[in-house]
Structure formats: C-alpha cells, structure tokens
C-alpha cells in the first residue's frame, strides 16, 4: 500500500463530518461521535474506524459507498461520523 504517499498527500486535509463532504469524495473514517443505537446498524455494515468510504451522493439522506455497497443514510446520523478526506477526489491521482 502506498501508505507514505497517502499520508504526505492528505495530511493537510481537514477532517470533516460525513454529511458535509461533497458528492464523489472519498475518505477514511476517523472516529464516530456517539454510540447512538441507530449507528450500530451502520457499524455492523462495515463502518469502522479506518474504513475507506465514498460519498456517492450528498444530500438528506445521503448515499454512502461502503464495502462496495450503496447505503442510504440520513443526514442527522451521518453528522456523527468524522472522516479524514482523501485530498484527491478521484482515483486517477491518488492510488489508495
């Protein structure tokens, strides 16, 4: 994995909440704020710290790309997920 590349490339990007990321952006889950029970289902579907996710479509509800599946998530819930964005929006520039 091109770890070092990614770290230097994306170190400057500020962490954002999941419901604030623009459509098409990718990122890595940094932490999840509350232990709200509704989040448990998302976590059971693969949303862990360190997981790579993609915002397929922003909105309320938004569409999240997680482990190859597309999941509709309400904005209110997505607010609790803090993501470290990959600074590059497409896979062409940043192989991760």
């Amino acid at each position, binding site marked *: 994995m091109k770890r070092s590349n990614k770290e230097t490339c994306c170190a400057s990007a500020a962490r954002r909440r999941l419901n604030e990321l623009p459509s098409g952006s990718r990122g890595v889950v940094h932490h999840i704020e509350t232990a709200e029970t*509704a989040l448990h*289902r998302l976590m059971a579907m693969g949303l862990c710290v360190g997981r790579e996710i993609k915002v397929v479509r922003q909105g309320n509800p938004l569409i999240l790309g997680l482990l*190859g599946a*597309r999941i509709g998530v309400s904005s209110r*819930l997505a607010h609790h997920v803090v993501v470290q964005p990959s600074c590059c929006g497409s896979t062409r520039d940043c192989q991760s």
Partner: protein
Amino acid sequence: MESAGKRAMRVALAGNPNGGKTTLFNALTGLRAHTANYPGTTIECRLGRCTNGASGIELLDLPGIYDFNASSEEEQVALNALQGRSAEFGAPDGVIVVTDATNLSRSLFLISQIVEMKLPVVVALNMVDLAEAGGIRIDARKLAAELGCPVVPVVARTGHGLAELRAALRQMKPPAPREVCGGCDGCRFKTRYAWSDAITQRCVEHAPRPASRWTERIDHMLTHPVLGVAAFFGVMLGLFFLIFSLASVPMDLIDGFFSHLGGWVERTMPESDLRNLLVKGVIGGGGGVLVFLPQICILFFCISLLEDTGYLARAAFVMDRLMRRVGLPGKAFVPMLSAHACAIPAIMATRVIEDKRDRLVTILVLPLFSCSARIPVYSMLAALLFADNAWRASLVFTGAYAVGILAAVGVAFALKRALLKGESRPLVLELPSYKMPSLRTAALLMLDRAWVFLRRAGTIILFISIALWALATYPKSEPPKEAVALQQQAGQLRARGATKDADEAQAQANRLTAHAALANSAAGRIGHYIEPVLRPLGFDWQIGIGIISSFAAREVIVSTLAVVYGVGEDVAEEDPESLYDSLRRAQRADGTKVFTPATCVSLLLFYVLAMQCLATQAITRRETNSWKWPALQLGYMTLLAYGTALVAFQTLRACGIA
C-alpha cells in the same frame, strides 16, 4: 443428519437483507411452504419442506439481519428464532447462511457470529453469477477451509448449485471451532471486521469491471431529490392504474358469478328465510370477500417485482425526506397510494415498514384515503349537488379525495406527536444493485397473500355480512295495506291480460313491502333511535339506515337509499339517474326537501372520513394482532366524520345555504 425424534430437522435460513434468502427458500421449497406467525408477534415467517433429495428437512426463512445485536423488532425476532429463545420454536438444528457473493466482507461479519454458535452451518454463496460479471472471483474451497464449514456457490434464481447445496444439507455438522472475537474488549465491530477483511483478502480476487455502472447511472436519476420523486410518482401512478384497471375484469367476473349463483339459488329454492340467508347473507357476503382478491393479487405481485429489482429501496430513499415531515418513513408511501384503490391490500402491504410504531400509525390512517368503494357514493352526492354541471361535479370528487389525504396526513402527524410518540428511526437503508425480478417469487408471494387474506379476513367478513343481513331482515313485519291492495290489483290486471300494468303494480307492491320491511327491521328501528343524533348533521332516520348498513360496506348506501325511498334496488343498479331523481324530489314529513345542498355536503364529508368497512377492520385486527387498534380506528374516524359533517352542515345553514 438423520432426523431424530418426531420433528423433522429444521434448518434456518439466515443472512443479510437483499442476499437472496427468500429466492433460495422458494427454490428449495416451491409450493411446499406456508406462512405462520412468530409466536406472540405479527411478524410472519415462512416454513417449508425441501423438495428433491433433501425432503425431511424443514426450512425456516428468517428476516434479514446484519448483526446479533438487533436494531429493529424484526431483527430481534429473527435472532430469537435463530438462538432458540422462543419457547414454541426451539433452536434450529442447523443454519444456512445465505451470502451475497458481491458483498462478502460484510456478510462475513454475520457469519463469524453464526459460526460461533456451534450449530451445523452451511454457507450458500449466492449470486455468484453477478459477482463474476462484476469481476469478483471467490475461491470457495479456500473460504470453506478458513471458515471451517462447507461453502456452496449457488445462483438461487436459476437453480445453479442447488443439488450440491442439498447434498451439503444432508451432511451438515458443526463447524470446526473458531475463535473470532478474542477477548472482545474494544470495538467488537473492529475485531470482527479485521477478521473478515483478512479472509476476504485471502479468498477473493477483485478485478473491477464497468458492469456495475448501470446501477450508478440509473441511481443518479432515481435518487435525485426532484427527478427521483417525479419518477416515483410515475411508478406509483402506473401501479395504481394497473390495480384499478386490470382488477376490474376479474372483479366483474366474480361479481357476475356470485349474482348468477344467487339467482340460481333463488330460482331453485322455495321462498323462505333460509333461501334469503343463503342468497343475501352467505352468497352476497362470500362474493363481497372474494371480490377483493384481484386487487390484492395484483398489488402484491407488483410489489414483489418492484422490490426484487431493487427499486423499492430507491423509492423509500427518495420519499424519506418528504414523509419525515409527517413523522413517517418513506416506505409508507406505497400503502398510502394503493389505499386509493382499496385499504385492505394497502394495510397488508404496510409490512414493508420496519418500525412498529410507524407501521401502526400508517395502518390507522390508511382508511382515510378515498377508496374505490366510496366512488358510487361520491357519484350520487355529486349528482345531487350539481345536477347539470359536470365541471362542478368533478370538483366534488377532487375535493373529496383532497379532504381524505389532508385528514390522513394530519391524523398521522397528530398520532406521532401524541399517542405513538417517538422520533422515526433515522434512515439506514441499503440500495442493492438493480437485478432482473423473479416472476416465480412474485407469483408465490401473491398466492401466499391471497391465501392469508381468505383464511383470516374472509371468515370475519362473511360472518359479519350475515349478521348485518339479519339486522336488516328481522324482526319481520306484515306488508303494508297499500302493498296488499296493489298486489290484488296486479292479480286482477293479470287475469284480464294487461300483463305490463300488472307487472308494474306488482313491482310497486314489492317496493312498498321492502320499504316497510326495512323500516320495521332492527336496522330501521336503530335508524329511528339515532335520528336525534343525526339531525344536527342534516340527516333523517332514513339516511340513518343507510349509514348503519354502510358500516359493513360503503357502497351499500346507494341501494339502501333506493329501498328506503321506495325506488327499488334493481332500479338503482340499472338506472342510477332515476334513483337520483327520486332522491332529489324526496321530502320529509313536513314538506322540506331531504337532500338539500347542506345535507349533501355534510353527508359527503361524513362518507369521506367515516370508518365504514368491516373488511378493513378485520384486516387491521389481523395485522396488529389486537382488537384495540381497529376499535381506535372506528372511534376516532367516527368522531372525525361526525364532527366535520356537523361543522359543515351548521356552517352552511348559518350562511343561509339550507
């Protein structure tokens, strides 16, 4: 494994939602399946016997689960059944985990927990065809070694791999012990996913191909906040139209069949109470039940197709934001739309709503949407209000539908605020890839729903139709003097050969007799009794009889009014115009017109909002497992209807429109 003891070996089908569990269940059991309830709940389960070489194994189709920590009532019920916590069911003897091959790492999260149960396990790796099309290749043998249990690639839709699956079922044994969650402190999700990710890396080759782009492209439109909603309305309108139009052919056939049957009984049996009971009560009531079947069948067939393709998830997604303003989930829209055809299949369709409270609120407000049974009533009242103006008459219709919708939305809002409080659970909904739907699954679901309806609701409806017939027939009374005189006159006319006049006189005599019989029956007496309560609404005792008989079924009022105002039932059916004319001219004892504009409006509003359909109550009882909720439905709707009609009538009268 040999079946030990009396009970056949029972194997549960577990797995993530959208993994093809039900398709696999249907493929393995075909028609040898039936629907039962999880003990003490309204949640249904499908039980069936395997065919072809694995017979002797009973399969239990569980609702989809993601995790052993349930986040919904359905998941909890599935888990109880899986872990053998329900006393009546007992633990299963084995588990088939139906796994979506395109989503293996997520499924492994659940598989890790199932494997730890130490029950015999077989992993059915479903949809391998789709996986391969997407460039995903899974080494089933390696995976089996990692998991310690057999892994059988299948394609449930085509039947590929089923023979191997049945063979694996016959040789099920507990998996080799695996400790996935070591220690379990810290994020248990993380531990299991670490395990799952590792296995996925070892067993799956992923070379993504653009095959899945279709889903993305279609979704781009269907999940768009504006386009998606428009598309959804289009689909729903199409569904509604289909139910309305396609169903009318078999419905007419059923109606025709039962009238012929009734006619035949009338001709062959001598005049007697028993004959009357058979014709009006049993045959009439039975026909009244079966006539719902075409709509139910079409609705569920289409819902199954829509769900199979994956479209319903998009619909729920796109309607979610709008529906949340009322406090309901997006999925509630499907039953709400089909309630405009008939509330009964709509109430049955609320099972797509996961949250129990949301489902209950939806069921409680569905009858407020104007169903097709109200149409004859609307037609009659529109004609009475605006005899010559078709434009205004159609406004009456639109207004009536709008009132129903507004009332439903309002009551839903109020219910969620007051009685069934609670924030709707935030949306977490998987949008599966689009797939070709299975006609077989749709047909099986349709048959199942139809049978459930007949078995549970059908009996109640039939029973109550008979009860209402009795109310309108007993106590009997002598034909009035005028009728007797007319009958004699008819006899004399016939003797002289003036058959036409004789027939007319006889018909008139029959009408008078029917009118008197109804007025003196229990229903008629109740009508008189409640008249003081109805007068503030502008109704009299005759309309009262109509309303009472309508509590069985709404459209009955048209034929009841025909009898009550002495026009005759057959005339009402064949020539509604003459019925409308008679009603327009109808006068009270003091000479004032009965159907004044104010009365018509108030009666219309009453019919928009009142709960007048025992079939609906029967289904509500069945779907909620208690009489409390149908009673609440009846109570609040009656109050709402009464109050609205009262306000309308008094306001109109005060404004001088008597």
